[in-house]
């Protein structure tokens, strides 16, 4: 007989200190371009051209970075022609999209400290799904923060959506959202859910969840690491402030 109880006890506690302490373990996040060191305006243009998804755009002599479009291809990271993105570690990336900020209703106040979640895969590649699944593993353990998965949308407070929303998933997505009681929130996980990512909009997929449902929180990343998803849930219950969606241009180096 295998003694699983003993095995579990021997393993000890592996859970992250986040959100009470920042987690700086290596490999918890791929990081992202946070700003730029640019030699000239021409270098800014060159850097923007290197970005295949249009996340980096020339802006006022420098570049601004729209994090919702970044897919971590790392092509801006290496220094070429005097242009390179400054790589930023971290994962506290969840932001409130402009349309949501405009809505009259305040984001939180609706919930206490606990949330019931419903997850929908709307055409995600599997990486976002895998990262969302990790928030349930012993390292991240969402239960300690009062977050739970619910088997029915009738009990759900928050809809987590990953993927660009393929055509066949439009209806299931809409139905799940309609079945949820108010107050409810929608979190878009990953570049695809925010902007269609590398897939949409196209003949088979939308350009993100916002075409079908109002998004309240966006978690950029391709995929966003588990801590970024936990961060988004903490933003929903107002235990943390949201981040900015765009890194504005900085003064040249």
């Amino acid at each position, binding site marked *: 007989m295998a003694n699983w109880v003993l095995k579990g006890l021997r393993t000890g506690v592996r859970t992250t200190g986040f959100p009470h302490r920042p987690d700086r373990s290596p490999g918890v996040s791929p990081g992202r371009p946070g700003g730029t060191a640019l030699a000239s305006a021409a270098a800014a243009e060159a850097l923007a051209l290197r970005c295949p998804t249009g996340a980096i755009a020339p802006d006022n002599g420098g570049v601004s970075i729209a994090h919702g479009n970044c897919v*971590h291809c790392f092509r801006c990271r290496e220094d070429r022609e005097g242009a390179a993105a400054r790589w930023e570690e971290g994962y506290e990336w969840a932001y409130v999209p402009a349309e949501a900020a405009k809505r009259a209703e305040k984001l939180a106040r609706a919930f206490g400290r606990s949330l019931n979640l419903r997850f929908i*895969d709307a055409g995600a*590649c599997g990486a976002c799904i895998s990262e969302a699944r990790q928030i349930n593993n012993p*390292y991240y353990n969402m239960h300690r923060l009062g977050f739970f998965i619910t088997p029915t949308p009738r009990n759900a407070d928050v809809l987590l959506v990953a993927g660009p929303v393929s055509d066949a998933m439009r209806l299931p997505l809409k139905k799940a959202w309609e079945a949820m009681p108010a107050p409810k929130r929608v979190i878009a996980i990953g570049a695809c859910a925010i902007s269609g990512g590398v897939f949409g909009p196209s003949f088979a997929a939308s350009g993100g969840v916002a075409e079908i449902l109002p998004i309240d929180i966006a978690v950029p990343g391709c995929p966003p690491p588990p801590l970024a998803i936990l961060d988004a849930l903490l933003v929903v219950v107002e235990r943390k402030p949201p981040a900015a969606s765009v890194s504005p241009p900085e003064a040249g180096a």
Partner: protein
Amino acid sequence: MPARLLDLCRARWGERLAPAFDEAARLCRIACGADALREIHDWLAGELGFAFATLVAEDTKDAAGRPQWLLTYLYYRDAGEPWVALALTAGARDPVVPSLSGLVNGPSLDWHEREIEDLFRIVFDGHPRLGEFILHEDWLEGAAPMRRSFDPRRRLREYLPDPDWQPPTILTAPGAFSMPVGPVFSDFAESAHFLLETVGEDVIHTIPRFFYKYRGVEKIAEGQPADRALLLAERFSGTAAFAHGLAFCEAVERICGVEAPARARALRTLFAELERLRHHAATIAGICNSTALAVATSQAALIEEDLLRLSAEVARHRYLFGVVEPGGLAIDLSPDACRRLAAAVDSAAERLSELHRMLRYSSSFLDRLEEVGIISPATALSYGLAGPIARASGLARDMRKIFAYAAYGETEFAVPVEQQGDGYARLRVFFAEAGQSAAIIRRLAAALPDGPVATQPFAWRAGLAMAAVEAPSGAAFHWLRLADDGTLSRWRVTPPAFANWHGFHLAAENFAFQDFPIILASFGLSNAECDR
């Protein structure tokens, strides 16, 4: 080598066939008419034992410039042998070609024909089941999204599918009713629909409905430059990103006549095995979770997360996005990173084998897996199943051995095979392969060849190539045609999940209701990969 195949062809067909060998693509092309197609397939698959890989449809023009369809059936067999491509042409208007689905190993072609019928509107005469497949029934009647004339940016409809749609109920047993499961599940599962025919406790049949996640990857890639399409290759199935990125890059390299340097080939092998190790740890966690064995699930999940962190630490990204590129790799490993990698992989492998040992002594766990979801060796062969699923049913096919891409030709490793084909056999194969992957990584990290990690820059060339890799869940085929400016003109991806999901319903027959999640988990398949 092709000399032997050409001899065989001459001996059997005389002047009827004129095979031609394409050195660059390592492909033996046999043009054939619709009348001879079935006979030649039976000869290749039956007499010679070739395995079917994929079916590619393209809109081309004939010698006189009239539009026509070109269908290419691709087969492979043993190490060192070239691809065999049966090339069949059909008229542009209302094309009809004979179906091969009823012949030797016909089931392995079955879904390919359905896909081509659905996306190109080419009819396969004699196919038992054509119609709604990838495009669900609420799609515009007659739409053929993969035809060249179709604009991929055009939204076909601004409306939602019929909200009153009900799954068709085809019941065979008296007193049976159907139980729909999906496409949305109660945890972090991928979207797919299963219609279970049940009489209460036992499930008699499972009718799956996939392609909820169809994003038209091969279509939207058309016209994109290869380095942009690489993002799609890595991202259509994120948990096998490196394998598909590698297959795509191998195809591009073959077309452009470049070879990745030795160090890049060794590192590609290393990263491919790191991905396999992580994938298998995740699958094992899924199997443990499906039987509600909480501590074992946590143990496997810890190993998975450790490997994800390790990937990000040495290769920047947790799922190895942005690592492989045409010509080589975007990153290199320092000697220090190699040491850390080897140590971390060693520890993961050791913890996995301890987990395996403990699971073997947990009878409540084994009871749930043994003799559950059986796939027979004959089924595995005729359905052309791939990877660990096929190897758990006695089919020892492995692309790493057959095509010896990257550095697999110079790397020693075993291909674990089991015969029972049940859930437990699959679990043992996942554990054994994870052990092999760790051993490969350890060996490569200790003795990486010196030199650059990329051959660059190189010139784009027009051409076509077929690349096969062993992705974590089995054989992945990438058939690629590039235009001379390096943009894609046709890309056909045949992922392992496409073959394995086709066989899934055979494992999910006549079982107790509560075994369904276990059978599902023991396959460890991705819908994103299948649906594209």
